């Protein structure tokens, strides 16, 4: 019925009428799903664990709201994201949720905008055509671990950084760590490594760390390893343990606090801290944001941050 209205009266009218009917139904104590909203979630990155949690959080909230959700994974193909956006716009969904850099899918965003269909980003990035992007504050997360490292090593020593600048959300983390370490005159970043992530990043990070340990044999010559995400931190941990240098007090931090990282942190070894994004919270908040847009609200703050938590041995086991 909603779609029939849309065809005859155009998007805005249909939306208003539908919202009004939904409100009536709600006040009458009836469930709303008779007018289920259709939302498409499109991402090239569904195979990545973080993305799955976003989508789980989103679909859980969408179920509560009684929506029909179509999750579309283009398996790494960004141009296909544009194509699938065109398709769901043609199909006539009520909203589109993306998990990809909006700068790369401008054509798809334009198609949705022309059809009056709102697009919400789930840790995607900002764009004038994205009504709102729901994400963690990457700068704040990187600051948490970079400052943890700096204070933990007393503001002096050699630090190894693992970064990944090709991926914008990880790139901003590196920027902050650069700034924090640069602000300590006695901290020297001796290497800024971009590991090969084809196999997840652990193996290559381990190999690169092994080479660095071999090049810096003196105990204490490496004070800390700051990694922009957990896999390089885990790789570095393996290298340090394999080299028999676990007792030198090299401090390792990651970001994301994946299960393997939490385990390592809880074990109380060199891997001391990570930051947990609230992926499910981002997914749920994205759904709430879609609801706000469907209710006709104009969202002023285009980036909606969901807080992240520092994970250390104190709370690694407890948290999740």
């Amino acid at each position, binding site marked *: 019925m909603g779609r029939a209205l849309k065809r005859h009266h155009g998007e805005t009218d249909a939306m208003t009428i539908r919202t009004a009917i939904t409100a009536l139904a709600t006040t009458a104590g009836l469930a709303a799903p008779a007018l289920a909203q259709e939302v498409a979630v499109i991402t090239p990155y569904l195979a990545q664990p973080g993305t799955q949690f976003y989508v789980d959080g989103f679909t859980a909230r969408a179920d509560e709201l009684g929506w029909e959700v179509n999750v579309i994974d283009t*398996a790494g193909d960004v*141009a296909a994201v544009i194509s*699938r956006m*065109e398709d769901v716009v*043609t199909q006539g969904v009520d909203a589109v949720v993306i998990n990809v850099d909006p700068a*790369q899918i401008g*054509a798809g965003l334009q198609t949705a905008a022309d059809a009056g269909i709102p697009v919400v980003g789930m840790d995607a990035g900002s764009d004038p055509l994205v009504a709102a992007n729901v994400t963690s504050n990457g700068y704040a997360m990187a600051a948490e671990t970079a400052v943890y490292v700096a204070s933990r090593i007393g503001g002096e020593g050699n630090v190894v950084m693992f970064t990944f600048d*090709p991926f914008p959300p990880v790139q901003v983390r590196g920027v902050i760590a650069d700034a924090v370490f640069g602000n300590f005159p006695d901290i020297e970043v001796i290497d800024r490594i971009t590991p090969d992530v084809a196999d997840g990043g652990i193996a290559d990070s381990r190999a690169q760390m092994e080479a660095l340990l071999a090049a810096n044999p003196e105990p204490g010559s490496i004070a800390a390893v700051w990694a922009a995400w957990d896999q390089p931190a885990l790789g570095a941990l393996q290298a340090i343990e394999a080299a028999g240098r676990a007792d030198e007090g090299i401090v390792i931090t990651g970001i994301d606090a994946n299960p393997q990282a939490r385990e390592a942190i809880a074990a109380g070894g060199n891997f001391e801290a990570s930051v947990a994004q609230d992926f499910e919270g981002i997914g749920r908040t994205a759904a709430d944001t879609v609801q706000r847009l469907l209710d006709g609200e104009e969202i002023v703050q285009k980036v909606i941050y969901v807080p992240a938590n520092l994970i250390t041995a104190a709370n690694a086991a407890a948290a999740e």
Partner: protein
Amino acid sequence: MMQMARRFGGLAGMLAVIAFFAINLPETFLTPRNLLNISQQVSMLTVVAATMTVVMVMGDFDLSVGSMASLAGVVAAMLFTRDFSIGAALAASLAVGLAGGLFNGLMVSVVGILPFVATLATLTVFSGLAFLVSDGRTIFGRDIPEAFGAFARGGPVLGSVDERALVLPNLTLVAAVVVLLVWLVLEQTSYGRRLYAIGGNRDAARLAGLPVVGLRLSAFAFTGLGAALAGLMYASRVASANPTQGDGLMLTAIAAVFLGMTLTRDGQPRVLATLAGVVVLGVLDNGLTQMRVDSYVREVLVGAIILFAVGLSALGRRGLRRG
């Protein structure tokens, strides 16, 4: 009977796919806007598959086209960051494609390495070069000239539907021109007929005095150039370039050619049949998405349909031989 299945089974299958979506998506599938969308969505694949047809005509194939597409995209984007003009960057990137294709041809025809091995190796080489050139980064935003990204979004306006302009996408036009050129080369020149002769029987072609080495070498130039062009189209569509973005084109392009081969009488690759194969793959993606079929189920279905079509055609061919 088998001959009929072989001759028209593929075609009937393709029409069935289109009819299936037309029935299930009566209001959206066969609309001008959706058909134009599909034409744009498959434009890059069309270019790769059409030029892939040129080497597959000889019984060869080129596994390096996907990474060449990625490489061409990042080469152009890197030149953009160095303030080269769009024309110069595109020319350089197409030149890289041509050189890569000729190198493949050299390895296959002069050195005599199996195309599978030679182009598997250059796949890795081109991919590595793409990472080297781009430093592993995605090049996007202000580094990409406005006009370059705008090209893929634009095109001649055909009219207006629902107060929204109906545009014939530029990418569709590019793909159409490439198909036309490849068709002219393969079907209307003695060069093309010689390639088919090599595909029919390489030794016989050589004994008949055809310069087989030179012909095979030059044919690979088409795939290199086509891959580079597709990489540029991809980069324009996403207004950015990263060192892996074209990689997915290779397998789909080969699948499209095989799918097309089920349509031709003698089971040979023909560029118009390839185009039909591309369209079927594009239609499946478009239609199944609109029908909200899970994207993983969609992949399984697409693979199964390729197997079904090619399998049917293989059975038909066997029947022909027996009969």
